[in-house]
């Protein structure tokens, strides 16, 4: 089985991990002004496109 020849340096490890970034989620407003993910039911009022989808 192939194994690494050298230990990965602290610098290389940290450089690689520096690219692990969190992305801000895309946000939109529902028709009653709650913040929601776009194209998704509003989890606060349970509505999508002014249609009641779930009872909350």
């Amino acid at each position, binding site marked *: 089985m192939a194994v690494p020849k050298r230990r990965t340096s602290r610098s290389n490890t940290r450089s690689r991990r520096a690219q692990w970034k969190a992305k801000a989620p895309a946000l939109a407003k529902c028709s009653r002004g709650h913040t929601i*993910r776009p*194209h*998704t*039911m509003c*989890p606060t009022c349970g509505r*999508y496109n002014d249609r009641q*989808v*779930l009872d909350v």
Partner: protein
Amino acid sequence: MPTPTKGARLGGSPAHERLLLANLATALFEHGGITTTEAKARRLRPYAERLVTHAKRGDLHARRRVMRVVRNNSVVHTLFTEIGPRYADRPGGYTRIVKLGPRRGDAAPMARIELVEALTVAQTAVSEAERARGTRFAARKAPTGATAEAADDLKNESPTAAAVAAEAQAEQPTAEAGAADDAATTEAKDTKPES
């Protein structure tokens, strides 16, 4: 016809996917709408809609085709007596998928798939008119005849009428053709409040 699915089956094997989709479709017709993962909802949609198409056909052969999938006799009965006739004048698109966001626990994207309502009288009338006209949007015509005259009279009082009058002026040589047709629209223009 829906495109055949490529890639991995739901649940791992073809047999598992067949059973899973059959159970999902049965639950959908039984309750009118179910909450499931988005991937399952997307896979279920063409599958369930084909069953509704069979239900619309309504003969014994179609019923036997459906019974191969939906093994609950009372669900097949409601499908053929209630759901099928409800969509008699709807050319496909019997289900709606609404995304609900990630599930707590494994963050799987959830969705609700439901049977849509029957077409209202207004929707049927609009689709009939569009079919008769052969297009979804009528071509814009310059106002002629009575419309042009009315707009000319009122152009000092209403900005809408002024705009119509200007348009009529540009097309003046070919006017007078559809005077009778425009009588109804003229009344609408006259009663329009100033904006």
